């Protein structure tokens, strides 16, 4: 006798079982459908033999066998399925298909827009070769507003937030273009280098949507930034290869395409690739493992060894740091790399896991980086008056202090965590709370340095 209650209960149980099965990577939706047909037939047979629905379901599940073993068997037969492929459009989810398509369409339209933006000044007579200063100042303004726009669209941000974001870009555009920079002067170069860092925070606010005030929202943005960087580098390598081959094969038939490549393909590609890479990172975030933490795992031990060898050599030979103009920048970069290693291992770590070997390694890395930087600062401090305070040097010093403070406090928090006196969440919170500091310093360099140093 068919019983409505029993039927719905059975459907719910089968749904649950199907969901559970679908989560196995090696078992594809088409296999799930095949196995489900089997289940239903089995259950039907058992009910006909006199079992009630619950019993029939349990027996059928038991006969289907242990899911781990089953998915292992599937994996052995379909080993290619263990390599996650970036399928932007799933075969079965018809509901989200149009959404995915729209997303791709918007991203690619914005990429084309970025390519147009970057060539627009040239069409208005500002040539890329002669007006270096204009392009250096405005480079981030060609691309980042579009990227922000993409996230505004995607996260459906409120119009008041959009006004703030747009306001930031307008202020930036006015400041860098209204200042009477000396041509190719150091404050111009500094502004050009720091503006993208300051504006990246604006992108971050848009990316996080309403979650910028939460640790998780900012941490997601850090993860996004790392993946975007890796994707961008990969796309750039591919683009370089494409241009190299194009130039080569056209050269073979005696047609020079260098100008076309250099003034059209390179700038348009470089600008559009930011949007395309961002879209890829968004599309793949749940499908493919994050790359940045993997690289971090690989390079943290290597950087630690390199730094320890450096410190050992300094101690053994008693050599001081050769203080020249670039040394501070070199050590800034070192701290930035160490911070990156720390940040991306923090971003991937299970915050509830107890301290392990890798955490100890992380502390050794941070402490040795601080020691190396201390040696450099010591050498520079002694002779800073000799050099005078040029904008470059003040900027480099400021960055050093910012990175130093971050790493020093991270080191303290990490040691506390290792001694089980603090939580890992405290490190995470510190790192994500610190993100605006970089942007604020970069903004200071862009806005305050030129007038302070007389636009030299």
């Amino acid at each position, binding site marked *: 006798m068919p019983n409505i209650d029993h039927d719905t209960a059975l459907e719910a149980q089968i749904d649950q079982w199907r969901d559970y099965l679908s989560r196995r990577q090696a078992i594809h939706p088409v296999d799930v459908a095949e*196995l489900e047909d089997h289940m239903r037939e*089995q259950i039907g*047979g058992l009910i006909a033999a006199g079992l009630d629905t619950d019993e029939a379901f349990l027996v059928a599940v038991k006969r289907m066998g242990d899911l781990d*073993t*089953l998915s292992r068997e*599937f994996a052995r037969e379909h080993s290619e399925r263990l390599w996650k492929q970036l399928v932007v459009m799933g075969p079965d989810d018809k509901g989200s298909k149009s959404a995915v398509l729209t997303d791709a369409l918007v991203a690619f339209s914005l990429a084309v827009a970025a390519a147009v933006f970057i060539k627009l000044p040239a069409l208005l007579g500002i040539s890329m070769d002669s007006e270096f200063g204009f392009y250096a100042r405005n480079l981030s303004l060609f691309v980042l507003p579009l990227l922000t726009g993409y996230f505004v669209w995607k996260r459906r941000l409120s119009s008041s937030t959009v006004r703030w974001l747009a306001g930031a870009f307008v202020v930036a555009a006015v400041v860098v273009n209204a200042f009477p920079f000396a041509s190719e002067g150091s404050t111009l170069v500094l502004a050009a280098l720091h503006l993208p860092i300051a504006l990246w925070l604006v992108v971050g606010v848009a990316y996080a949507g309403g979650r910028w005030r939460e640790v998780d929202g900012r941490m997601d943005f850090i993860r996004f930034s790392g993946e975007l960087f890796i994707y961008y580098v990969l796309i750039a390598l591919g683009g370089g290869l494409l241009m190299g081959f194009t130039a080569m094969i056209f050269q073979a038939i005696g047609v020079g395409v260098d100008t076309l490549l250099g003034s059209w393909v390179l700038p348009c590609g470089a600008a559009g690739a930011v949007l395309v890479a961002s879209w890829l990172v968004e599309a793949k975030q749940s499908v493919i493992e994050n790359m940045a933490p993997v690289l971090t795992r690989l390079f943290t031990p290597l950087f630690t060894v390199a730094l320890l060898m450096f410190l050992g050599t300094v101690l053994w030979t008693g050599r001081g740091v050769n203080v020249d103009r670039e040394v501070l920048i070199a050590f800034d970069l070192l701290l930035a790399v160490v911070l990156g290693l720390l940040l991306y291992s923090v971003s991937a770590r299970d915050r509830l896991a107890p301290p392990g070997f890798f955490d100890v390694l992380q502390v050794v890395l941070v402490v040795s980086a601080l020691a190396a930087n201390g040696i450099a600062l010591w050498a520079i401090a002694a002779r800073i008056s000799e050099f005078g305070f040029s904008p470059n040097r003040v900027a480099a010093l400021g960055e050093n202090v910012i990175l130093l403070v971050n790493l020093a406090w991270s080191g303290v928090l990490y040691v506390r965590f290792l001694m089980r006196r603090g939580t890992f969440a405290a490190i995470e919170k510190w790192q994500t709370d610190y993100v605006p500091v970089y942007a604020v310093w970069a903004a200071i360099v862009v806005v305050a340095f030129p007038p302070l140093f007389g636009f030299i």
Partner: protein
Amino acid sequence: MEINKDLTAASSTPIVLAILAEGDSYGYAILQRVRELSGGHLDWTDGMLYPVLHRLGRLGYVEARWEVADTGRRRKYYRITTEGTAQLAEQRRQWQAVDETLRGIWQLVSLPGPVSGSPSNTLLPQGA
């Protein structure tokens, strides 16, 4: 009596191919037929049949197609191919050779346990 895993795995190919040689079939029906033929001795875990069918498909011994069954559900049917038939013949020769060898040995050695007689299975048969 339970047949061990290695033997089950080794015999799965000829058994599935032979059942399909009788006519096109689908997973559940193939399992029923296995239970029927083996008198309940060969009890495959249901799920494991599917990777086997997929492997045979990859090797080109069987072909799969989706059809709507009389229950209204979509069902995947399997059909043996010419290569599958050839493979079945080859497997048959190999298993016969094994079987003959064993028969010869069974006559020469005396082992404890039931050698002859009907399989009086007191355990419940596993098939539905």
